[in-house]
């Protein structure tokens, strides 16, 4: 799992680059707006070269992505995910965003499956259990877990409590709860008390490893 929303804010960009440099293969990526920033600039300041989850398909490390938004509206230039998909090198599982986040939340919350109205009457309903409640039809969707969650926060204390900033929350807090091992990339590590108890966004219980960015990192 790779946190954030899509765009630079909330994306664990340094962890992603490290994973790419590590070179491990046969990865399944779970993301959200996964591969449109590099070709469209989505969610990145103009003066930086955008990177996105397409990097794992460009490098050939990933063979599957589960996400809500794999490709941009345009095919010129072709994004890394669409290129890999066209070449038969990538399986793409497109999930409605609300269903995706709820599947991740459910995994962390010990809920194996849930019903949602989203997707009824569309291709995402194929093969899924339908059930009516109070006259409306719902689909059964299952929890989604992962071996690792790579997430991004502004600040961690030494126990692993996390504080987020602005819209950088997105998929990060839920992913922290849903993976077997959660690794967070932060700008700052503080002693307990350095994060106001009222502002803890993710509990230390969920966090396994903290990676501190270098001071003055030019990436958001």
């Amino acid at each position, binding site marked *: 799992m790779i946190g954030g*929303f*899509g*765009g*630079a*804010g*909330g994306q664990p960009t340094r962890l992603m680059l490290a994973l790419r440099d590590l070179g491990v293969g046969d990865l399944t990526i779970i993301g*959200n*707006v996964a591969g*449109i*920033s590099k070709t*469209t*600039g*989505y*969610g*990145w*300041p*103009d*003066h930086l070269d955008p990177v996105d989850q397409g990097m794992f398909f460009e490098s050939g490390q990933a063979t599957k992505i589960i996400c*809500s*938004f*794999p*490709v*941009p*509206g345009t*095919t010129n230039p072709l994004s890394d995910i*669409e290129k890999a*998909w066209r070449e038969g090198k990538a399986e*793409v599982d*497109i*999930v*409605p*965003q*609300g*269903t995706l*986040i*709820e599947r991740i*939340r459910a995994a962390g919350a010990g809920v194996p499956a849930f019903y*949602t*109205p*989203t*997707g*009824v*009457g*569309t*291709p*995402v309903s194929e093969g899924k259990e339908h059930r009516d409640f109070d006259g409306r039809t719902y689909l059964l969707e299952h929890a989604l877990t992962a071996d690792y969650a790579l997430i991004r926060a502004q600040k961690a204390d030494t126990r692993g409590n996390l504080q*987020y*900033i*602005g*819209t*950088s*929350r*997105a*998929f*990060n*807090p*839920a992913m922290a709860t849903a993976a077997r091992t959660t690794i967070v990339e932060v700008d700052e590590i503080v002693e307990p008390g350095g994060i106001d108890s009222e502002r803890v*966004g993710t509990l230390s219980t969920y966090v396994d490893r903290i990676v501190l960015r270098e001071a003055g990192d030019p990436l*958001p």
Partner: protein
Amino acid sequence: MTPPTNEIIGPIGNDPAPRLGRAAIAKRAARDLIDGSTVNLGIGIPAMCADFLPDGVELLYHAENGILGFKELSAPGEGDPNIMDAGGKFPKLVPGMAFFDSVESFNLIRGGHIDVTVLGALQVSRTGDLANWIIPKRGIGSIGGAMDLAENSKRVVIAMEHNVRGDIAKIVEECSFPLTAPACVDQIVTDIAVIDIDRENKRLVLRETAPGWSFDDVQARTEAELSTTGEVGEMV
């Protein structure tokens, strides 16, 4: 910078009169937004609605990535990547704005708390089915928050061009493209018409036409059958 609304297109082909530009479509769609509503605007023409709110109307804008209550965007080159909207743009920090994670963001949507969503479309059917996430020929598309928004918002307005390349109908008897959500659209605002969808009676009701366009002109460019109840007004 507010885009000009006096831009007109054509007449193209055998159109009887010019079509409205994209900004004018957004302006017309914005006119019906009710003060105080919680609103989610899709990318493209829908997002432009924010530039044309009638005097005295203030909306609470929601974006899927976890922001409520944003207003204007930061100047180019000045935005904070940690204050983003769902279109990947950077709004200014304003008092009363709220940030939250994607669980909460989709509780808001799936729970039926969004009053109005304005979206674009590839096809809309007579019964209000919406197709806007994949072109079958391409074989791959992006759903994002569109299925949740279309299925669960209290009101769904489509703001789009009436035809593809001025020719191919997008308002159809039945969608041939894969659906985003069935029977969800309440109103369609295009470059030549305003059409309400009476979902109970499964019919399209033409409310307004662009200047110089008649009922028959709009019908000729619409695959699904149109009807009227009372007078057809002029889009202004």
